[in-house]
């Protein structure tokens, strides 16, 4: 069992703190009730269970490693903002409240061998690894009357970041607009809704405001759902292989992770926020009178913020990928050649990292799924060519 005591100090004690108050003839000092005391505060704890298995077969040519874990973390400190009604009025302390279960496993299998013998011997290796780890919130600060579609219990940490509208299609023609019910409005931005018009993106009308659980004829943020489960990749995998023959050797590393999804960053969902800003290239494929089949909705302006498209399934993608992480190639000059040149040895090599994605699902957005988001600094590829001389 492990503990974590990174907790704000003095939360067990009820205190009042001084500040600037009202002005009468001169500004006065004010005193306020501090955060409510939690006399029972303690640290957070976790219980871990691990099991592992290592084996080698076939004269050590085959290696197998397996690991499993289960971790129950409880008494996690959290402020109960949602589970205490808003009429209570005090600011609440951290309480030992939340619980998370995590579990996962990892397998690694490797094989190495040689073919042939003598000078023409080729030695090679292949190894692959696969890991799966996930977690779920068991206890968490949630409102008494939380709408079921917003509850995070039973879901992995971060699942709420997949909240978004379910996009239908762009309203491509006036007939599409006319087919919508009377009085139908579409969410534009936090300032309000708009009557449908050609070029707008339509969404699924799932429910209304709190207490209205049937479609209400207007698209609002109440129609949002969790569009996915994992924002952190539950799966990690990799593969490396290599071989050497005579003076030549090469190896390759493939790496990736998957099973998670992400919402496109808000800035990429915005079409030219300011005159001095540009727009991401994929927006070229948008609805226009001249191109009514564009994938993305029209770039209409509705004041500030301009054309800020809300989170929706149109901008939500699977982030699984496999990357060619590294390639190494080297050649050692044969010894008869080096001795003739009167040097100890000479090696020529190439090594490259981050050489490209074997597969991913966001090529059209033009960024790398391993990046945090579209605005993050891209992952750099490196190519090194070298000569190593031993005298």
């Amino acid at each position, binding site marked *: 069992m492990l503990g974590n005591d990174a907790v704000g100090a003095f939360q067990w004690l009820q205190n009042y703190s*001084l500040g600037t108050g009202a002005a009468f003839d001169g500004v006065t000092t004010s005193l306020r009730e501090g955060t409510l005391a939690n006399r029972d505060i303690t640290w957070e704890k976790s219980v871990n269970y691990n099991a592992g298995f290592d084996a080698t077969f076939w004269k050590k040519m085959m290696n197998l490693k397996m690991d499993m874990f289960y971790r129950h973390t409880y008494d996690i400190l959290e402020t109960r903002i949602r589970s205490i009604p808003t009429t209570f*009025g005090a600011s609440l302390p951290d309480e030992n409240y939340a619980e998370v279960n995590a579990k996962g496993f990892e397998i690694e299998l490797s094989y190495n061998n040689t073919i042939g013998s003598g000078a023409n011997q080729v030695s090679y290796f292949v190894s692959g690894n696969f890991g799966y780890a996930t977690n779920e919130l068991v206890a968490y600060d949630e409102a*008494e009357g939380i709408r079921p579609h917003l509850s995070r219990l039973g879901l992995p940490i971060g699942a709420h970041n997949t909240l978004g509208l379910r996009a239908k299609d762009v309203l491509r023609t006036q007939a599409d607009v006319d087919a919508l019910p009377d009085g139908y409005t579409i969410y534009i931005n936090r300032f309000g809704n708009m009557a449908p018009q050609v070029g707008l993106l339509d969404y699924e009308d799932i429910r209304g405001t709190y207490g209205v659980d049937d479609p209400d004829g207007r698209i609002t943020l109440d129609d949002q759902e969790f569009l996915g489960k994992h924002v952190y990749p539950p799966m990690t995998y990799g593969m490396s292989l290599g071989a050497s023959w005579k003076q030549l050797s090469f190896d390759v590393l493939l790496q990736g992770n998957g099973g998670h999804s992400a919402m496109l960053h808000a800035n990429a969902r915005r079409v030219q926020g300011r005159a001095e800003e540009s727009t991401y290239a994929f927006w070229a494929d948008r609805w226009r009178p001249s191109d009514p089949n564009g994938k993305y909705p029209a770039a209409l302006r509705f004041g500030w913020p301009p054309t800020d498209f809300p989170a929706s399934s149109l901008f939500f993608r699977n982030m699984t990928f496999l990357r060619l992480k590294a390639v190494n190639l080297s050649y050692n000059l044969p010894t008869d050649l080096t001795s003739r040149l009167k040097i100890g040895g000479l090696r020529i090599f190439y090594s490259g990292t981050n050489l490209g994605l074997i597969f991913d699902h966001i090529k059209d957005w033009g960024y790398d799924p391993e990046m945090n988001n579209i605005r993050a600094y891209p992952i750099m590829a490196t190519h090194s060519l070298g000569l190593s001389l031993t005298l």
Partner: protein
Amino acid sequence: MKILKLNIIIIIILASLMSSCEKVLDKTNLGTVSEDLVWDDVNLADAFVSRIYDRNLPTWNRGLSGRSDESNGGEAFMYGQLTETSVNNWQYSQIREINILLDNIDGGTIEQVDKDRMKGEAYFFRAWVYFEMIRDHGGVPLIINTLTLDDDLYPSRAKTSEVMEQIITDIDQAINLLPEISASSGSNNGRVHKGTAMAIKGRILMYYASPQFNPGQINDRWQASYNANKAAKDYLVSQGFGLYGDFPNIWMHEMNKEVIFVSRYEYPLKPEPTQWAAATRPLDVSTGRSGGNQPSWEIVQAFPMKDGKNIEDPTSSYIYDVNYYWLNRDPRFYHTIVYNGARYELGMEGRIPGRIQWTWGGSEMNSPTQTGFYCRKAIDVNAAATFAFDSNVDFVSLRFAEVLLNLAESANKVGNTDEAYEQLIALRARAGIEPGPNNKFGLAEGMNEDQMNQAILHERQIELAFENHRYWDLRRNRLFENKFNGTRRHGLYSELIVTANELYALQESMSATALIDHLSTNYTEYFRDSVMVIDNQFDINWKPEYYFYAIHPDHIELNTNLKQTQGWSGGSFNPLE
């Protein structure tokens, strides 16, 4: 400014000394004050009260004039676009602090006179905060004790009438407990006093008698409102309060005898927090904010002529000429409205004597006025732009003039039309309107109740223009739909018909006074004015459910005992009960 009271420091030091003989690991938090000290020390308790003032004193609201015919703006309100989440007046953190004081102060050792005053202040603000909440939402949960986590934390909404009963109980307690302070005394420094509580009681009861809460017009409510406002006026007069003779300086001469309920500001520790002045000034002579409180053509026209007769009244001794709309108007017009060619001596660095404000199209470099006008009420012309942003002009949220107007309205409703006349005449006389041959200052003679009611509402519109009243007056009288729906508000566009160089050469050639004089007969040689629409996109479309706003669905999600207000999605709570 006063220095932090020495006692507080001593207590903090003592507290830390006392704890120093304890065990090494039992640390004391030196940055805070322990709970058990607060109610035994008058300075700490006073600091607690200061916090209650600081959080609950009203402030200027830059958005309110737009939610009426005073100005442009107020979009979601004016165009019927509000949702359940739009208005969220939910001040339970403030209520909790007030309840803490009321629950604990009697157990402390502070002297009774201080206890009484502080309790009076707490009762005053509890009434004030609950009134603010029910004015927006109708009945809300009634919490009058400090809740602990062991209490029932899931209240239902109390009926509007039940909250109102508590408000009156509290404000009566405040009236009994608060000190009597006269206008000229040194203790009239911005704290609430008995007279403040009486005046606020009058305002609250008048709202409660108004059609918003009282669509059936139960007359008892008007009688109660009359009694409270009459008592407030008589008491305030006995303490030396009254109309201040110098209308534009009500806001500049701090704590004059007209100031009843005030939020005070000081630079640099306590500047006005909403930057009202910066937003209201033309951006060419302001900084950090703009676009607030630009007067509509409607409010410009609402001001009567110098003899108190309306602009279209043929019996006025002044002829209203729309091309020269600013001539011969009620003096309050000049203290409220800045028009194209008016003297407005603002500057980035401070007052610029003789400065003329131009609003003709193209004259302003930064964010020109949307309506053709600016509001100058409560704007300190001596202040540099940065001191408009961090202004120290107090916000007078209730002044004696309003007591007279509240009294006039209530008196008229209970049949005392003469008493209503008296109040309006007092205001018009102070404004400098000509008395006329019948000493009625332009008011029509022999008005019936309805006509008088209209006259009072009109007087409020001009006397209290841009003081955060018009929106509430329209709303409590349920006037929005009938008066405005399907219409749009207007501004005035001034087109320069000579070249700018010619105009500026003219301005160079004479003094400001001479130029103003010249324009009062030759304006049309330089400008062509036309009325323009300032609601560019939509007609005004106020919804009937806006007389009681929805409560935010978040509160219901956290406590399903709360019911939504009728008229809103899923609403079943009747705010009229």
